[in-house]
């Protein structure tokens, strides 16, 4: 047969096969859906008979009349494999046109099962024919997504949808799982929920942890048991049921800690051989973090031993022993981080870094698992004759340690009595002794490293150090000169304390800091000149070097653009000139991350009749703009990542012949128990010195104290609107 004809046939077959596959998928979906229909849409499920929403929610776009979420952790006794099946059914009343638009399309995945009905105001029920659905490549609304499948969705436009209609849809998803399933969810959503039921069925060979917090109703065990893989109701399958009603829509507020304020459930299901599986007591109300630490250290023992060797290769044992305790801890910590990054970076890239070339690590962001960190760190400290304790903490946005139910809520750290510092799992940038998000001021548990696992080992309750606004500081020293209408800026920006963690990924975009670490640990001093030497030496660079140099230049251009974009978030940059990273801040807790940069702009001086305006307020960068609603009221406490200070020291050199008016207007002093915004102005000859200090004194602000924070934030915003009048003398 002619080759062209064959190719044509192949192409045609591909297309027609696709179409057939698509039809087959939908047919299978329909069959499955019918099978589950009785389970889920059974007319005997009287909970779904509700058809009216209470009057109090009449101005809401939609109301969930009833929803049922049923998740079963199943076991196949024949194959000895576990699986998970979830069924969600929702009945939603659409009360306005925005809801019609919102729910106008129904999305589903054909490997699962699902269906949708419309219940008209007169009670008529219309089943939507899903056979007309089409495959979608575009974005799918969150409400139809789950973490179980990544395959393509289908969608259908729901016909004849009107205000007053009720949509009644269900979705079934199944999955074989080899990992833990961890879930923390609020009981409310963006739509008010009149009534809901959440059911978990747990078969043998699963360990199940469950908890209700923040006044969420408790789960009640149903003694009749749950449904097994074959659909049989069996007592051996444990069933937990939570009934909830009258749940208003979640109220969104800035800096609101959702999992501490909204009623939540936490669950974790672990397979028979998974980490923290418990064969003896497979049903647990909460997870004991102490057990997790003990298990973690023993489970990852081999990995810890192996990692410890990697770290030791990075350390110069002899010189470490000569160091004082502080330096010894910091060197070990930095050695661990370097070894960890090296394990994750390709050898080729590592060689380049060691040769003095930078390589983009923006796509290589890593955080060490906290059991590995704590386990390895205490071993190394012990090797270098430093005592230490394990520390168990949970970020405050999850709640407290006694509410812990899932592994992701737990963080392990290490306390070193000799330095009186806590050390936490690092990412690419965290410096030794620096804190991590959410744990400042929380209650934690400690135990001496040797006592872990011993019968007499007792955990101690400790309060982790509170966040201190005097230590978490951003300082920008800004020198401003004016020539005609052009303002030139030379700035020196430093980040200290917890700010470093937020800003390091933006500023240390490439791996100069890694080279610094390599040089530090190898005790080399002139490493950065390696690149220049190499460039000079290679007049006719080989391909590899040519490639690298090109890559290096491109990355430097990229980085310059990244820094310019970063600065442009706060300033109106017309011409970006230079930048340099003076200190990478990864060395230790007190070393700042420091960036210098310069630029010019024509956008700060404007004409004011015969005089000029200097938009002085804009020099402190953008400030929080509270809405009217935020000014008026606050329902929940606000939780900031940490207490902090932001300082601007602005020196403005005015051209000869010009004098500034309106200086008094720049003096602001708002200072209360929650925060402060203070600005001062002095004038020495042609130099104006303006300092602003904005302080969030506490990381948690109660609803009652919110008005004090508002005063501070509004003062800072008002400052940004200030202008100076520059007049001829």
């Amino acid at each position, binding site marked *: 047969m002619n080759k*062209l004809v064959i*190719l*044509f046939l192949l*192409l*045609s077959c*591909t*297309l027609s096969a*696709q179409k057939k596959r698509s039809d087959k998928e939908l047919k299978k979906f329909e069959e499955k859906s019918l099978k589950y229909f009785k389970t889920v849409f059974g007319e005997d499920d009287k909970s779904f008979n509700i058809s009216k929403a209470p009057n109090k929610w009449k*101005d*809401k*776009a939609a109301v969930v009349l009833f929803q049922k979420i049923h998740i079963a952790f199943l076991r196949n006794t024949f194959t000895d494999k576990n699986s998970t099946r979830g069924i969600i059914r929702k009945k939603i009343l659409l*009360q*306005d*046109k*925005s*809801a*019609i*638009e919102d729910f*106008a*399309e129904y999305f589903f995945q054909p490997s699962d099962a699902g269906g949708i009905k419309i219940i008209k105001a007169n009670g008529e029920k219309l089943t939507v024919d899903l056979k007309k659905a*089409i*495959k*979608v*490549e*575009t974005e799918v609304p969150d409400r139809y997504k789950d973490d179980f499948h990544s395959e393509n969705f289908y969608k259908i*436009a729901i*016909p*004849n*949808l*009107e205000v007053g209609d009720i949509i009644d849809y269900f979705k079934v998803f199944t999955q074989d799982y080899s990992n833990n399933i961890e879930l923390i969810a609020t009981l409310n959503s963006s739509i008010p929920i009149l009534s809901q039921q959440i059911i978990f069925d747990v078969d043998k060979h699963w360990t199940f942890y469950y908890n209700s917090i923040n006044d969420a109703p408790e789960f009640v065990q149903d003694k009749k048991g749950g449904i097994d893989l074959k659909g049989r109701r069996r007592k051996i399958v444990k069933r937990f049921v939570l009934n909830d009603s009258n749940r208003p829509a979640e109220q969104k507020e800035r800096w609101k800690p959702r999992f501490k304020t909204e009623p939540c459930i936490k669950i974790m299901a672990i397979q028979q051989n998974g980490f923290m599986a418990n064969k003896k007591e497979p049903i647990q109300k909460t997870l004991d973090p102490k057990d997790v630490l003990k298990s973690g250290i023993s489970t990852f023992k081999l990995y810890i031993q192996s990692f410890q060797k990697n770290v030791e290769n990075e350390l110069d044992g002899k010189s470490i022993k000569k160091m004082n305790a502080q330096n010894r801890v910091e060197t070990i910590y930095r050695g661990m981080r370097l070894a960890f990054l090296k394990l994750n970076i390709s050898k080729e890239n590592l060689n380049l870094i060691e040769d003095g070339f930078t390589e983009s690590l923006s796509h290589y962001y890593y955080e060490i698992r906290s059991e590995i960190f704590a386990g390895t760190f205490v071993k190394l400290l012990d090797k270098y004759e430093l005592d230490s304790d394990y520390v168990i903490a949970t970020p405050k946005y999850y709640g407290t340690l006694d509410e812990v139910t899932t592994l992701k809520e737990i963080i392990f750290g290490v306390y070193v009595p000799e330095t009186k510092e806590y050390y936490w799992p690092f990412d690419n940038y965290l410096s030794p002794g620096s804190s991590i998000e959410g744990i400042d001021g929380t209650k934690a548990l400690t135990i001496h490293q040797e006592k872990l696992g011993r019968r007499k080992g007792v955990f101690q309750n400790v309060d982790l150090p509170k966040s201190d606004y005097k230590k978490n500081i951003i300082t920008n020293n800004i020198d401003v000169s004016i020539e005609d209408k052009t303002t030139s800026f030379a700035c020196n920006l430093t980040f200290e304390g917890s700010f470093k963690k937020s800003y390091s990924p933006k500023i240390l975009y490439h791996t100069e800091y890694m080279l610094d670490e390599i040089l530090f640990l190898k005790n080399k001093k002139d490493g950065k000149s390696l690149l220049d030497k190499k460039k000079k030496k290679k007049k006719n660079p080989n*391909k590899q070097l*040519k*490639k690298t140099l*090109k*890559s290096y230049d*491109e990355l430097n251009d990229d980085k310059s653009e990244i820094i310019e974009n970063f600065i442009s978030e706060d300033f109106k940059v017309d011409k970006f000139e230079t930048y340099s990273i003076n200190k990478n801040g990864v060395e230790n807790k007190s070393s700042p991350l420091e960036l210098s940069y310069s630029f010019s702009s024509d*956008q700060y001086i*404007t*004409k*004011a*009749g*015969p005089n000029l*305006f200097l938009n002085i307020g804009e020099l402190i960068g953008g400030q929080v*703009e*509270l*809405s*009217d*609603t935020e000014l008026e009221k606050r329902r929940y406490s606000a939780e900031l990542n940490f207490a902090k200070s932001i300082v601007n020291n602005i020196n403005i050199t005015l051209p000869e012949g010009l004098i500034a*008016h*309106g200086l008094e*207007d720049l003096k602001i002093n708002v200072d209360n128990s929650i925060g402060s915004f203070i600005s001062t102005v002095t004038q020495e000859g042609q130099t104006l010195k303006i300092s602003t200090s904005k302080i969030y004194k506490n990381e948690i602000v109660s609803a009652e104290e919110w008005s004090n924070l508002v005063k501070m934030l509004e003062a800072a*915003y*008002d400052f940004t*609107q*200030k*202008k100076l*009048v520059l007049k001829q003398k």
Partner: protein
Amino acid sequence: MNFKNPLLRIGFIILTFCYVSSSSSQEDLIITESNLNVSFDLDSNLDPVASYSYHICYEYNGVIDYSFSKAIFFDNNSEIKNLVKRSGKKMKKAKIKPVISDYQSEGIFHSDLKLMYFEHLFKESENRLCIEYTKEINDIRFIDPIYFHDVCESNIIKVNITVPKWLDLKTVEINFNKTDQKIKIVKNKRKTEYSLSNIPKAFTDRYEPSRSCVYPHIILVPQKIRQGSDQIDIFSDVGDLYGWYSDLVSSVSNNTQKFEELVSELTKNKTSDLEKVKSIYYWVQDNIRYVAFEYGIMGFKPEDCQSVFGNKFGDCKGMANLTKEMLKLAGFDARLTWIGTTDLPYNYNIPSLVVDNHMICTVFLDKEKYYLDPTEKYGDFGKNAGRLQGKQVLIEDQSNYIIDSIPFNGGKDHSYLFTGNFDLNIDQLVGEAEIKLTGDQKTNVLNSIFSMAQNDRMDFVRNFTASFDKNYEVDIDTYPNEDYRDKNFLLEFEMIKKNSVINLENEVYVNLEIGNEFGGYSIDEDRITPIKTSSPVFIKKVITLNIPNAWKINYIPENLQIANENYRLNLNFKQIDSTITYTKTIEIVNGILMPKDFDKWNSDIKQLSEKYEDTIILEKM
């Protein structure tokens, strides 16, 4: 748009298209040569088919390995055949196993557009790739326009069009005067060759007009087929185009029974024909959701009216058809109407399917024609959306057709009018104000309001009234309801303008600017694509300041007057007795700004922005 339109695909077409994974590597990729041979043949049923045979060679000059993705688009009327590549040091020929998937454009619910793509890894040592394939179009009415620009830079592009004796083909060259490249055209009896060299890559930018408005391209119009002494007209003129449309429309089996009662209900208490028409038109706007379909012939053929009515959704054709049938039922002369919106730079001198991308309904009432676009939610009867204004329409007229144009009135049909009267109160301005909106300005805001949940609407209105600026405090408690048609959209409110007064005891600086429209809106100097606003713009704000007793005016800013064919920017300050009136008028005439005008725009915007910052200076007497 929901009208099936091959032009919607040109963003991805036609000589080639490549997805590039890394911008820096993309810079190193060029098309060294690209040949497209367009030919025509008759298939086994003696139906004419078109073949687009491509031969494209790429060269990669980067040093880092680069994975290049080549994508080819096709649909139910076309097939991709003979896809092969040559690559490697010996440029060995090999088959390609492409991946085929559906493709969805933003805003289109269902399309038959498909994507065939494959990947090729360029290395420094193996940096050349040539590909060949043929796109066969099995109905020559649907032949693709031919574009030259690609996302890669091209050295040489040649397009050869060979027309057989049995076919009359018209080639229409569009935007050839809008490119710096010289397009060489050699025309022989039945062959035409277009060639051009050093073609920069096509860019994609925000707010750009459709590519058909900007890039040079060729539209091929198959006019006639000759078979012996017979000749069959395809699209010899607009009459043929209308004929083809008309046949499709005739094949729609409309049944109006389902909505007879509704039509009767909608019209029963209406005292005039105008009221009856409005009642039906607004019902369709309010109750039928717009869902775009572009699947096969349904890209051109309206869905029957009973389905659209039953589903409560439809595309523009379905909605226009339902409107027409409801109006006919009520005794009106209503007709389907084809139109190409302002996204298309064509008129009916080109009898081709590419000239239309939308359908509306025209109703004849008291010898007047009214254009009804039911997809324009909250649109007033007798007012036309900006995207339709100035465009030709093709209106049904039984076996004949009518060509007309929708009037173009620039931005004035779509105005934002603000009036405010303020007093000075220490360091702020306090007063009363109102906002009136018409045309697209009004429908856009109403769409925003009613797309929100009820409990969020008042906040939106408050923020909109305050120009989304924290420095304006407004006191407003009501917003328009959905019956706001045929009335002025009016918001009346009290307003405090903060941070606009600098009080230096004997001297007060007052800034009267409100809204700061286009302030700082300079265009990136590297931009090479035009900019299009969604509809023409007309903003007029009149702000009056009452001068307090014991103060005199020391300085009033000079007026700013900038006017050209594209826009007018006027800021006018006028003192009358103890008041100063600041009048701002901004008009963007046709909504498109070409790159040649960017420098002028930037310089004008700089002046405008500076003037926005300028102040009135009052001095204590």
